[in-house]
């Protein structure tokens, strides 16, 4: 049992109020100082994620960054990883892969593209390839950083910059970009010449696994860009980094029940 001095909800609530109106790097600076190498940035290499890497690296080049390599990522994601490694020498980036045995079992049962056949199969795939590795990445951390923003999804407008993540053993979750708009993120990326994901230029609005995302035409709903073939899928899943809200795991357990553990 850990007896590390962590924040409780009261402190997190007060801090979240205090950090309103402050810049993302203010939150990062405080968090890096407070949690050191027990803190890591989670990244799916979306627009906000790389902005956070740039900010955090400027504060502390040894800051930990992790991502989930699901095994089905587009080539452009791996290209971007290489670019980031060049741009930020010594970048402390850990890539987590799914458990081989779990992937093998999943593919044996449902085929390599089983996720096309049902919402349940797709959730099983997300679970094996993303949720389980995420949980492994968070093990041992005291705090993690996400790129969640209030403007990403109408039901996400109340997220706080400092939260206790009760889905993940009550560690601290920081959302430094909560207040920023998409436009501010891109201004930052341009102003600081940060490498960005190649698929944005090809019309993608959210970056995920290759078979499950596609470009969205102007005027099309966001849902058209991810798991577009599904009906009766839980709302919100897949909208940007839903996996980082915890809501994804709630849906997973509600729909898959005990299967979510296997």
């Amino acid at each position, binding site marked *: 049992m850990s007896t590390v*001095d*962590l924040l409780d909800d009261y402190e997190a609530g007060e801090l979240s109020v205090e950090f309103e109106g402050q810049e993302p790097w203010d939150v990062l600076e405080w968090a890096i100082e407070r949690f050191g190498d027990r803190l890591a940035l989670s990244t799916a290499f979306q627009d906000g994620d790389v902005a956070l890497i740039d900010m955090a690296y400027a504060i502390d080049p040894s800051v930990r960054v992790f991502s989930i390599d699901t095994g089905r990522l587009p080539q452009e994601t791996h290209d971007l990883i290489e670019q980031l490694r060049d741009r930020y020498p010594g970048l402390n980036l850990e890539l987590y892969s799914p458990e081989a045995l779990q992937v093998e079992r999943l593919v044996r049962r449902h085929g390599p593209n089983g996720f096309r056949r049902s919402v349940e199969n797709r959730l099983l795939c997300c679970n094996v390839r993303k949720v389980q590795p995420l949980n492994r990445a968070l093990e041992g951390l005291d705090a993690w950083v996400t790129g969640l923003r209030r403007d990403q999804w109408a039901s996400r407008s109340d997220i706080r910059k400092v939260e*206790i993540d009760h889905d993940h053993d009550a560690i601290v979750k920081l959302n430094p970009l909560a*207040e920023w708009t998409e436009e501010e993120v891109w201004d930052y990326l341009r102003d600081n010449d940060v490498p960005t994901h190649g698929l944005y230029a090809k019309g993608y609005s959210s970056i995920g696994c290759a078979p499950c995302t596609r470009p969205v035409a102007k005027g099309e709903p966001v849902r058209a860009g991810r798991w577009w073939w599904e009906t*009766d899928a839980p709302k919100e899943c897949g909208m940007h980094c839903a996996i980082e809200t915890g809501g994804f795991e709630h849906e997973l357990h509600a729909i898959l029940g005990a299967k979510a553990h296997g």
Partner: protein
Amino acid sequence: MTTGTARERPPKPPPTEELVLKRNPVERLKREKSPLGILGELPQLIATGYADIPEEDIVRLKWWGLYHDKPKVGTFMLRIKLNAGRVTPAQLREIGEISNAHGKGAGELTTRQTIQLHYLDLPSLPDVFDRVAAAGLTTAGACGDAVRNTTGCPLAGVAHDELFDVSPLLDEVATFFYGNPDYSDLPRKHKISISACAHRCNAPEINCISLVGALRDGEPGFGVLVGGGLSSVPRIARELGVWVPYAEALEVLRAILDAWKEDLRYRVSRVKARLKFMVDDLGPEGMRAEVERRLGRALADFTLPPHPGSDTTHLGLTPEKRDGHSSIGIPVNVGLVSGDQMIAVANLAEEVGGDVRVTRHQNLILTGVPNARIEQTEAAIEAIGFPLDLNPVRGGAIACTGEPHCNFSVTETKTRLDALLDHLETRFGNAIAELRLNLDGCPHACGQHWVGDLGFQGSTARDEAGTRHQAYEIYVRGSMGAVAAIGRPVFRRVPTYELDRTVAGLVAGWLDGRRDGEPFAAFATRLSDAELGVLAGRPPSTSSRRTDDTDDDQGA
């Protein structure tokens, strides 16, 4: 506070409308299309189908009391407003019928004295709303940035010992605010409580505005508490220090709401939008000055008499004002009421010529029972499935909606509280009648875990093998009433399978070691974390907080 290390900043200029719209997606959403109008779009929404409805419209539906059920695949929760928990037999019967017709017979009583239904699919909503309206009920502003259900003493107008009857004012306030477009675009939700209960039973300490009934030179009126509220950043309400004559109550409520809703500082971020943050910024004196400025007159000084500290549940028999009649408080275990039970209670109330009330402790009260018929009525209540001899600890216990309905909840809530109560009852019996347990599945605190004798908030913890389990944080030193205070989690990440044992240790320690019938909160406050740890059989969580940071949690 001591935790903050964020740098001091020069004060920012007051925000502009432009900044508000840039920073706050919900302010944009409200400007683009008023949420109150969304009900008229139901036919188009149904034609569109749940999956393709823009999330913005789902958010707008909150203004009519609707929330996503869990999982988010097409059904909704509906919250029906009941002014201070008052509901007629005919209305309650109709809610039960709606539940049976469209909501799988599910129902729950809430801490704001409303009734919530679940499982309502989109195509059922026109019928649901037609029936709600036909019953003379409303859901307008049950959720969303509006004046939420007004709470109050459930025995308003009835109890023999109330200071005076606030029912006409409750009606006036509901008629004015509910669905009023001028008060449906607030910076955030707003909670009003009005009561002249002799026991101050209505949790005035944790509402945005509470009008607390009092007599001044024999005249009825109110002291005013402002800026209370729990959620993620809890505050005990602060006293405005003014006297509001009964006839001026609505005018003063409007002035307070106007001061807040017109100040753009409370619209930039929803994290800082509630009235409590304005009271933090201005202090009660500054708030009073602003209200008086808007009224164009000074209000007389007034300080409320101390909280009586008596029981606030109204369980059991209460003599009514009307000669020969009584109210029967009905403990409803963890607040769950089926559609059939609602209908049965409604029929019974009609038969005895009484009314029904929903309490903030998630119980029911049957009013207007002729004393000659008490025994017979009690038997009928028990036959509906509400045993009246429940240990009062159950009547006082509160759990949030949680599993299986709520998208936020991390753990079981009502079912877990029920099991915990089983354990404690078996071991301690009636010795724990007065203990108040509040259990929540997430930090939003609908079940008010910050102010229970023992508060529980859902979390998760891994065992030594790395397997994750549901877990709870145990809050102590919180309380309501005479010594209102915000509790803190002294034990964290307690796996669900260790919860009963841990809590029983604390309760046994209190029963053995309390002085002169000391309430649990006072006992827990007297002991150190380490001493509580010995009783609980597990070490307290260490934290930086226990230094000098008591201002916020002890606020008047």
